[in-house]
């Protein structure tokens, strides 16, 4: 897994690079803004990029506009945005660019190397990844009559972790449940959201999208 980092804080770049290398992710380039990243990418295209949102020159939403430009230029590139802001509006904007192969995680998650690695793996696979914080906000906000209302508390937790890009094993570990049980919950979620007939990979994506759309 080859990844490039784009963040204007050298301190943070260095921390994340060391973290990723510790879990077997190869960091092939570091840039302080999107323009520099584009230049680096001309030589060796990585599997995924990690982007900050607030970067030079205007320190506003360069990461999001950069994500759109990168997706347009490289449709198969995984784009993981690591943001300081737990803003659903940002996450939604990013998913509108994707939704496949984009991820929105809070920077706070860098204390969990495995979580970052999993999320990178997911976006490279073409799945969406959304931070749990954002998801719980969306749950609070979603409209009244939604198929999500029929999900049990446990199923919601599973769906949230799924959206964060966790594998079934990771979800099981997190909830202290067996993989079989998790698979059962996921099947129930797909059934309640009317997604039984779709191919397995797509269903995960569609399930996450289903409630993001119902919440938006």
């Amino acid at each position, binding site marked *: 897994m080859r990844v490039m980092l784009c963040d*204007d*804080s050298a*301190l*943070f770049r*260095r*921390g*994340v690079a*060391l*973290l990723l290398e*510790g*879990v077997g992710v190869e960091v092939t380039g570091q840039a302080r803004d999107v323009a520099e990243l584009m230049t680096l990418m001309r030589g060796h295209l990585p599997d995924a990029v990690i982007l900050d949102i*607030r970067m030079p020159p205007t*320190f*506003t*939403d360069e990461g999001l506009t950069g994500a759109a430009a990168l997706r347009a230029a490289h449709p198969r590139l995984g784009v993981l945005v690591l943001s*300081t*802001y*737990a*803003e*659903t*509006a*940002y996450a939604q904007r990013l998913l509108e660019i994707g939704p496949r192969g984009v991820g929105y995680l809070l*920077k*706070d998650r*860098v*204390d*969990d*190397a*495995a979580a*970052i690695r999993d999320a990178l793996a997911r976006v490279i696979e073409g799945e969406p990844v959304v931070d749990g914080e954002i998801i719980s*906000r*969306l749950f*609070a*906000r979603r409209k009244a009559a939604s198929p999500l209302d029929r999900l049990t508390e446990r199923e919601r937790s599973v769906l949230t972790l799924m959206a964060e890009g966790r594998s079934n094993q990771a979800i099981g570990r997190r909830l202290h449940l067996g993989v079989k049980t998790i698979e059962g919950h996921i099947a129930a979620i797909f059934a309640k959201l009317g997604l039984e007939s779709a191919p397995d990979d797509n269903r995960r994506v569609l399930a996450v999208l289903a409630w993001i759309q119902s919440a938006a």
Partner: protein
Amino acid sequence: MRTLLIAVAALGYGLWAVWPDFAHGTAAAILLLTGQVALAVTGGLFLAEGRRLVGVLFVAAAFAELTAALTSRPWGWHPFVAGTVRPVGALLLMTVLLSYPHRRVGYRSFVLGAGALVLTADLADALTWNPAPPGRPPVGFAWITLYDGGPGQRPAYGVYWLLVIAVAVAALALVVHRALTARGLERRELVPVFFASAVYGFAILSRAVWMVIPYFTGEGDPLAPAHVPEVVSISAVAAPLLIPAAFLAAAVRRRLDRAAVADLVTGIARPATVESVREALRRALADPGLELFTGDPPGADGRLDLQITGSTGGPLAHVRTAPELRRRGDVVEAALGAAALSLENARLHSDLQRQLRQVEDSRARIVEAGVAERRRVERDLHDGAQQRLLALAATLGRLNAVSGDPAVRELVDEARADLRTALSELRDLARGIHPAVLEQIGLAAAVGSVAEALPVPIEIRIAPLESGPATETTLYFVICEALTNAIKHAEARRITVSVAQEHGEIVAAVVDDGRGGAALRQGGGLAGLADRVNALGGVLRLHSPPQGGTRLEARLARPVSG
């Protein structure tokens, strides 16, 4: 009192003079008496007002005309006296009509020359003619009876009436000239006088034309001119009635002009401007060419130059107006006084407006500077402490990944949990200082983002705004504070947030169904926000009856940019 005496004297004398005609109920006699008494009263009123020339001339003219009416007594000295004073009344009235409103005789040489010629001819005719019918002995005063036949045999008679015609035509021409050259207030005041003068002059002229006919035909009796059509002789005695009426109208007009000055003060648009004051002066002084200069006036141009002085004695402006207004000092002075008030008001008003605008601008700038400063602090937090803590988080993540020791992992987990709390608190702190996302996602999304973290359903209706960051940030904080209060203190179960632009005004309202009873406390969060809203030219209103829910409303008068 004097006027009453004059009126009684004129009435008594007139009754006596016209009595023989009056007893027969002649309309002409009644008209003559009424007209001349009215003239005498007008004269009396002018005397009471201190206008000696006009007053004396009017009274004298009235008595002269009444004396001329002694033709009603064709015996003794009466015909001679009546014949002699025949032109005096008309000459005196002509003098008044050509002079008024000046205090000196106008067209002096014409008036004196014409008067002398007419009187000489008149006297010559009166002295050389025997008014008794032909063949009868001469009457009373006719000392030198050269002629006792019809008018055709009296050269002085013809000369006299021809002279009267010439003078009447000339006087009419002068009246027309005056009417055409009069300006402004004077013109407005004198229009009835000019009209009456013209009618009077024309009546004299028509009678003279009819009177001169016997000189050429030799027919008729000059003392009882039966050949003169009744309409002409009636007009000649009725015309003087117009004159008091005309002067009454002029007096009313003059009062109205003075009253119009009072309207000047109230009639000037608020706030007054130089233009509105100039227009009001033009109206009040009836001079459409009047000019108002607030700076130095241009060089003299023959017009009246007046200075408007302020209450401190300093010059406020100069006025250039028609020179005839010199005579209407009372009206002009009052008008300038009113104009001075208005101009001074206008100046104070604009000074005040400017100062108010400066204060408002500086308050808005302070708020904007505050917003900019908060933005800088937020960015420092974001770039500094936050990045350092995040790097620490990454280090903890590495430590967790490399350490196989469960005790170490447990400690690392503890540290990670603390760090996440710290980061979350730092994020909230930074957002409370300056909501950086506001500029990116707009007020609606930023408020939505706050609302979604709250445990109460919140309806949000926020229209797109045309406003600057200071306004938007202030509204954001007002809404956040209202939401916090609604949940924490009012225990609201439903909250509605709306922001809309109405007639160029931004109205933001947060309404809840909670306990109510909230107040803007000194030093409270809302009070601080009220100050910021005020500084941006707006108001913050709180309506919160006990048990009646709370409505907090911010109105920002104008979108502040920058």
